[in-house]
């Protein structure tokens, strides 16, 4: 898989340009913050009728990552659905598609702040998943190590010769990796935001996603 190779707590991992995390030894693919059903939730709450293709697009990209990686385990790190009603309101077509992606795989839903309960879909719902020596949870816990989390939707910029390129980014230091949001309708939080800057060690990296993954010292 094309991406940035690194190790966390002695485990070899690959940050993929798509924003997914790949653990080759376990054939485990981890994605965070899918926010499925976001356009539906926005419309339900009176915020306008955005193009209703976000769930389809997110699943399209996930299906491509699954086909390439042949992952046996999938961990969705929380905020997989924009809220619990959005999970329930998932159109039949997209529900079936998701079931097809799940077939023959172990599938773990980590509870997020947007989707704290069961979503009525196949798969295991957990508040966190330990797979020694790593642990998967939605929101990073200060002081933890070997931790894989999401929640913050980190992004970072590279500025070169007057051009600024901003991309969703993994944040990485020796204790943890924070995944970028995978969902189509998601924004980002700059790595220099105080929440992220205090969480990450001084020598942290930002891995910018895209056709190629570029590692830079985490902007703070």
């Amino acid at each position, binding site marked *: 898989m094309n991406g940035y190779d*690194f190790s966390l707590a002695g485990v070899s991992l690959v940050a993929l340009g798509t924003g997914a995390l790949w653990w080759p030894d376990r054939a485990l693919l981890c994605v965070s913050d899918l926010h499925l059903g976001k356009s539906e939730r926005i419309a339900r709450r009176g915020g306008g009728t955005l193009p209703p293709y976000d769930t389809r697009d997110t699943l399209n990209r996930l299906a491509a990552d699954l086909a390439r990686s042949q992952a046996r385990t999938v961990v969705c790190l929380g905020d997989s659905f924009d809220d619990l009603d959005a999970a329930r309101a998932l159109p039949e077509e997209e529900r079936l598609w998701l079931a097809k992606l799940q077939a023959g795989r172990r599938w773990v839903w980590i509870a997020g702040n947007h989707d704290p309960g069961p979503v009525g879909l196949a798969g295991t719902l957990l508040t966190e998943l330990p797979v020694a020596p790593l642990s998967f949870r939605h929101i990073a816990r200060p002081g933890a190590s070997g931790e894989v989390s999401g929640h913050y939707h980190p992004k970072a910029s590279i500025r070169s*010769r007057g051009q600024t390129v901003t991309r969703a980014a993994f944040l990485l230091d020796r204790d943890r990796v924070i995944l970028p949001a995978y969902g189509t*309708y998601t924004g980002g939080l700059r790595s220099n935001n105080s929440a992220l800057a205090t969480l990450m060690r001084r020598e942290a990296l930002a891995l910018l996603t895209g056709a*190629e993954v570029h590692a830079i010292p985490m902007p703070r």
Partner: protein
Amino acid sequence: MPDLPPKLRNWFAAKGWSLHPHQRAMLERAGDPATLLIAPTGGGKTMAGFLPTLAELGETPPEGLHTLYVSPLKALAADIKRNLRSPVEEIGLPIRIDDRTGDTSQTRKKRQRADPPHILLTTPESLALLTSYEDAERTFSGLKRVVVDEIHALAESKRGDQLMLALARLETLCPGLRRVGLSATVEDPGAMARLLARHPDPCDIVLADPGPDPDIAMLETDELPPWAGGGAAHAIPAVMEQIRRHRTTLIFHNTRAQAEIFFHNLWLANDEGLPIGIHHGSLDRGQRERVEAAMVRGELRAIVCTGSLDLGIDWGDVDLVVQVGAPKNVKRLVQRIGRANHRYNAPSKALLVPANRFEVVECMAALEAVRDHALDGDPRGPGPLDVLCQQILIAACSGPFDADALYDEVRSAGPYAWLSRADFDDCLQFCATGGYALRAYDKWQRLQQRPDGLWQLRDPRSAQRIRMNIGTIQDSDTLKVRMRGRGGKPLGEVEEGFAASLTAGDTFLIGGRIVRYEGLREMTVEVSRDKGRKPKIATFMGTKFATSTQLSARILDLFAQGDWPQLPRHTADWLALQARMSQLPQAGRLLVESFAHDGREHACVYGFAGRNAQQTLGLLLTKRMEELGLAPLGFVASDYATLIWGLEPLADPAPLFDPEALRDGLEGWLAGNAVMKRTFRASATIAGLIERNIPAAQRKTGRQAVFSSDILYDTLAKYDPDHLLLRITRTEAERGLVDFGRIEEMLERIGGRIDHMRLTRITPLAAPLLLEVGKVPVAGQAENRLMAEEAARLMQASGLAALHQAEAERSAPSRG
């Protein structure tokens, strides 16, 4: 002709005033359904608009709103209120006059709706908002006249389209409403009249005496203008001298950034400490108002400004207008010149200051156009559909509506007279369901059709959100700038992109002072005072206008003369050298030069299509060149040419200009470009898909909840390419930032006649382009290469590369 009230007549007589012929003509036509008055600045235009109102209201006016006055500027509405109130109060007429704009307090606004004044002064946006209320019918009941001031300024943008739709709505509420438009000199009065009138009503045009020709010249400076750039620093001593010689000088600039830089330099050269102010749209309101007040009191000797002072506010004793930088557009220049000498029948005095060598030619072409009374302007085209979508939402806010009736109402507005039912229905569908190929929102429609056939808001609470987002003004997203510390003084606004590029310690100019960037706090840029004399970063960008079609054509005509006695020697010599080394661009042909310079191949395309179109041409040509294996690296565009550099020489430019291929580029490749995405964002915001303002209670807490409109654009392009908003975006691309219309016009003009000059070195006309700012690297492979380079550099510089290398070697290599 209706009589003026005796008290008013006596007052006129006591002042020794008599009516101008056009003022009399407006009184005579008071009963006409629509009248357009075209008069120069200082011609008593506004009074001409109000005289029929004063005559009808008389000395015992009945209750209720009689006349609505709409102006493009809040400040103008406030100014007219002052100017109208003082004679009315002096005379003792019991006429109530009030203004209503975005600045009016909530309590006053409420009172105005319940108990409107006789004359209400407002802006298009505030009027649109008024018509969105359920009680609009009561507020406007009895309304007789609408006066649209400075209609020429509104007609150039979507604000005018929105206003005409609002007038159509008023006409429904108050049948028989009479309309008056007041305009500066325009190139096509007939088109303006058709815009104003209720379609298909007639609209007579009253032309006032245009007054004497202006006294206008190019400013001679001792120092030569530079080859490129827009600062005009070389002209500072000469402009300072002019300020000394005149009572009050208005110094116009094309962009806010240029105004800031010029003001800063002027201030450094102001040894006598003459009172000089700065005024532009990005400054804090308080600061602008202080400058305006000082101006009215006659305390300022000069004011450096932008288009924010273009319109008819009476600044008193201006006796000189200076235009810094080529005027880009003859009509705007003429309107600006009118700001000098606010007395009727006295010539206005103006000086043009070219900021660089090419602008000397452009200024000369503009001077000749002014002398020839040749104004420029492009027809606006049919009313845009994004504005119509907003109008449908506004109608829904005011109450349930019948689609057929609304369609008829909309078509009575000039810009929408030829609107097809299919387009109207698409807009209605968009407002109701989003109008997607995938029907996803049956449960959450914004508008619903009731059993009786009328359309209404599904959730009445959404009216508040719609009202908060009324308007068509599309400033790029801006952030407020404040002095650091508790209750820090607000200074103004900068563009979000500019703010994002700042790092702590950077210094920049705002409101004529140098400030130091400290940080971003809750979406406010915090700065501190800086004692330096030179800002590190010039300033924020601001809009750039493209040189008009007419002015571009005149420059080509000027080139064709062969010798140029009217131009300064240095500029004439420059053109002569170009003619010797290569050739001068000609009308009806396209000059393309190619040469090696500085180790790279260059191609210069003299399209004379204006900055935006030349920029788009750069994007399209580099794409084509990449396909042809010419390895373009980047380009830069000006109003007259695009210069492209790359690795391989251009042997034959003809295939690059195949109209079909360029058109395909617009549909295909350019569709993914940032300029198209900006165009989409503007339309999506106006149409109500993206909300700029959200009620505080519903605002999300984290920044990560907000996602870019680019994502919406990409998603639509991928899954719903025929969606209404993408159709609107493609139409918009014909003008504005993309300006594909002018590329097509250029292709038609050159008709395949391309002169390719292969030269051994850079040419005189191409050289200044290398100094232009705004170079665009070619995206795709180049962007990735740049990112990789910069990432490697950062990793090395920080020492992190070595650290993580060791880490990676310890862990096993990945499979996958």
